[in-house]
């Protein structure tokens, strides 16, 4: 079996639920264009989401068909994306990660100040920050796409755009050009790609 790359995205219920879902959908959509087998879905236990509760969204990428596609959680994420930075203070977002993983946080704070909140940062090979709120300042709040409904408000108009840009740069898993075909806010995505701050650890 080909390796399955697991990416877990952490967001906050309702106020960033849509942005979190956009991130996984954009990323998976772009990876599909590159011939990957992909999956993007919400953690079912986190639904129904409540305002400010932490919610998880998942992406899986593989060169072959994904064997465990009906397992509804990423047990061993190799990339973790935190859309609301405070989450790292209250939850072990690296749970299940093997040594050498990647963490991307949406914040304008310094990488070192964030590391103080991550007691198990030794698992990380790379940590990166992107100030998505500073770049676009837009958060789409909409519940139409939650619980598997039809998302009526477009994809990647808000902070999801710079975040996926940063993800492309940091992980190298997908091409920026393909992202540009998916996101609404292309320039936001480009800025995320350009402005992401990366630090290699250990």
């Amino acid at each position, binding site marked *: 079996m080909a390796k399955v790359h697991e990416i877990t995205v952490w967001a*906050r219920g309702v106020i960033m639920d849509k942005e979190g879902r956009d991130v996984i959908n954009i990323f998976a959509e772009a990876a599909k264009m590159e011939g990957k087998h992909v999956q993007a879905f919400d953690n079912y236990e*986190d639904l129904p989401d409540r*305002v*400010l*509760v*932490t*919610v*998880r969204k998942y992406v899986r990428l593989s060169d072959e068909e994904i064997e465990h596609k009906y397992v509804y959680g990423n047990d061993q994420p190799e990339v973790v994306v935190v859309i*609301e*930075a*405070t*989450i790292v*203070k*209250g*939850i*072990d977002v690296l*749970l299940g990660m093997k040594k050498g993983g990647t963490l991307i946080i949406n*914040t304008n*704070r310094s990488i070192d*100040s964030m590391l*103080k*909140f991550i007691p198990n940062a030794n698992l990380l090979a790379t940590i990166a920050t992107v100030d998505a709120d500073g770049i676009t300042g837009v958060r789409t709040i909409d519940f139409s796409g939650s619980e598997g409904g039809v998302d009526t408000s477009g994809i990647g108009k808000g902070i999801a755009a710079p975040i996926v840009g940063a993800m492309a740069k940091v992980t190298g898993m997908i091409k920026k050009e393909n992202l540009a075909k998916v996101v609404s806010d292309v320039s936001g995505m480009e800025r995320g790609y350009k402005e992401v701050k990366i630090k290699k650890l250990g």
Partner: protein
Amino acid sequence: MAKELPGYGTINVPKERQVPFGAVTKAPVCTQQLFITSNWRVVRPVKDDEKCTRCLICYMSCPDACWIFKEEEDVMEWVSDFCKGCQICINECPSDALTAVPELDFPDGVVRLDKPF
């Protein structure tokens, strides 16, 4: 009978997975300690005791009962473990005694959990 028929075996639910009889549980007292929600918070309300008039509006406005009036000390006490950071109290405070401060400005004060709810 010619031979013994199969039985039903036994069903042994491991202790840690057992569900209470009839899904009946004891009611909590004062707080539900199994459900700490401090990690929901992005900002926390910070109080200025000079401005606070002990009007109790914050106490009457919190869905999570996170403001307690300590009568002996004549002070409002904030309950860190359960405050979700909704900021209703800040919006309702008539004397501007409360300010929203990012949780990341504080080194601690959040109960760190393995898994979300």
